[in-house]
């Protein structure tokens, strides 16, 4: 049985244009609220006030030591690829319990990349159980809840928020989780607002920003960095993916996505962020993702493997060092 999805709020009609959001302080009071069929509900106290689900979310998330968001304004730069790599790299350490959560609702890729396609999520009294792809690596994605892998999820923002809330509130990660890696869709919209709002109280360790070297991608990534700053999310660092390609035939190196404006490294210098490293293109990465295999287990000698593991190490240093600093104070 696949778990059912609750509606977010009891509203009479869809939210109008310029809706301030039914949970906001201005709900029912804005210009846009005049004449809205929901005005009465919004301005009454039933919807407003602290969200009754927040304590439940906080209780769930307090069992997780480190929460990392994987973000990028641009699509197709490798957020999911990197999330899967990071999860695998962390889970390679037997002492760690790792969870991966896929918030890309319209295009969930993690089930395939982690080799769990076709699995289902089970519901029990304690919540939804994630799908375990290894003993210490659990995965939650909407991909597990679709009747057919091709079915499109044509949802407006409010409905997506509802699901994200349920993912945070109802997924039972077990007694304790060392790392939760959250994969996000491209852009700066409902999903991003939802996850940052709901996780605000518990706090996230920070965001890992993924980019590709060309300016068209960096343009969107700067917007995402601006979003993080506005939302008060710490940026753990930036990784540049798909930088450079080594021809398997002649070993000649070419820049497929030319960093005409200096790429990720320059961006980090400009905005004073930590540059975690760059990962070269390797056609075998894509093939491994398609088949749900772990790239660095299969090809430990690839330069991309070294690069990925270096980035993961740099990221762990960043996250775990902060912890020790906290305890010293």
């Amino acid at each position: 049985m696949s778990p059912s999805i609750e509606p977010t709020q009891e509203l009479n009609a869809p939210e109008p244009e310029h809706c301030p959001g039914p949970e906001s302080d201005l709900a029912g009071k804005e210009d846009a609220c005049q004449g809205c069929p929901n005005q009465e509900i919004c301005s009454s106290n039933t919807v407003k006030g602290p969200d009754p689900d927040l304590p439940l979310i906080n209780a769930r998330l307090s069992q997780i030591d480190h929460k990392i968001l994987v973000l990028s304004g641009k699509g197709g730069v490798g957020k999911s690829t990197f999330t899967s790599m990071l999860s695998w790299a962390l889970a390679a350490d037997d002492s760690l319990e790792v969870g991966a959560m896929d918030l890309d609702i319209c295009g969930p890729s993690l089930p395939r990349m982690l080799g769990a396609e076709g699995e289902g999520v089970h519901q029990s009294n304690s919540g939804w159980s994630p799908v375990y792809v290894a003993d210490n690596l659990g995965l939650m994605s909407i991909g597990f809840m679709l009747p057919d892998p091709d079915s499109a999820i044509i949802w407006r923002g409010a409905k997506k928020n509802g699901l994200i809330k349920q993912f945070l509130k109802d997924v039972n990660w077990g007694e304790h989780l060392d790392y939760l890696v959250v994969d996000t869709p491209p852009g700066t919209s409902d999903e991003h607002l939802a996850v940052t709002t709901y996780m605000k109280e518990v706090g996230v360790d920070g965001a890992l920003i993924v980019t590709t070297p060309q300016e068209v991608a960096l343009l969107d990534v700067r917007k995402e960095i601006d979003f993080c700053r506005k939302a008060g999310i710490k940026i753990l660092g930036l990784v540049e993916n798909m930088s450079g390609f080594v021809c398997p035939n002649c070993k000649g190196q070419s820049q497929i996505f030319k960093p005409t404006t200096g790429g990720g490294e320059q961006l980090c210098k400009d905005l004073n962020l930590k540059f975690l490293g760059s990962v070269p293109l390797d056609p075998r990465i894509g093939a491994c993702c398609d088949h749900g295999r772990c790239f660095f287990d299969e090809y430990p000698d690839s330069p991309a493997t070294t690069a990925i593991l270096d980035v993961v190490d740099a990221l762990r240093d960043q996250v775990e060092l902060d912890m020790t600093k906290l305890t010293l104070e």
Partner: protein
Amino acid sequence: MEAPPKSLNHVKHIVLILSGKGGVGKSSVTTQTALTLHAQGYSVGVLDIDLTGPSLPRMFGVEERQVHQSTNGWIPVQVCPKLYLMSLGFLISNRNNSVVWRGPKKTAMIKQFLQDVCWGSESEPLDYLLIDTPPGTSDEHIAIAEELRWANPDGAIIVTTPQQVSTADVRKEINFCNKVNFEVLGIVENMSGFICPYCAECTNIFSSGGGKQLSESLALPYLGNIPIDPSFVELIELQDNNTKGKSLVELYDKCSLKPIMNEIIGKILQKNLPSRI
């Protein structure tokens, strides 16, 4: 019977560029489609409804330009004669600022883009309006489908990359097209192989054949594949400082991707779809 938005009264053809997956090259295919149609003498308008990540102003090298208002509505930015562009990118003061909008606001913006922009005129109708979309199947897509419900668009070009991770998302987008009655004009496989500039060996970085397989399994037309060409990226990226006064249109004329795009667009033009007006 409900009427389509008034701004579309002087538009002959509407083509959407869709893909469930991000970063597969929707914007670059949109740009190339516009340039190819323009080179064949058509007048082309491009509407960018990717609100949180508008790339088209950069693609066309018109980031610094502004949209003007007239009594009839917003005037799109003219890239060159007979080539127009409208994007949220023109309305943001600082290019690094993020647009953090929830669904209803995005829906309102798209509505405005379709209703308040002057596309073509009585005397000079626009031949093609290309609509570039963000990834996914969410607010923006629902909004555009609602706006175009009575507008009788030609259909959608679906862009994918070869790997299965991408075609899986694209299948969802095709499902969406079926639900909202957008005809699928065909599938384009982008980033299909990379030709090494040193030894001319073709490497399939993101595997290959995914687009063709997809079109076969869903019985949809396959329009062709576009290889990765770093010189196109360079052409886009360097147009503001290194082009010796040449416009994008002239530069693209020499690009190796042009004949490939000509063939792809040829397949769409061959359908001879009737004009809307």
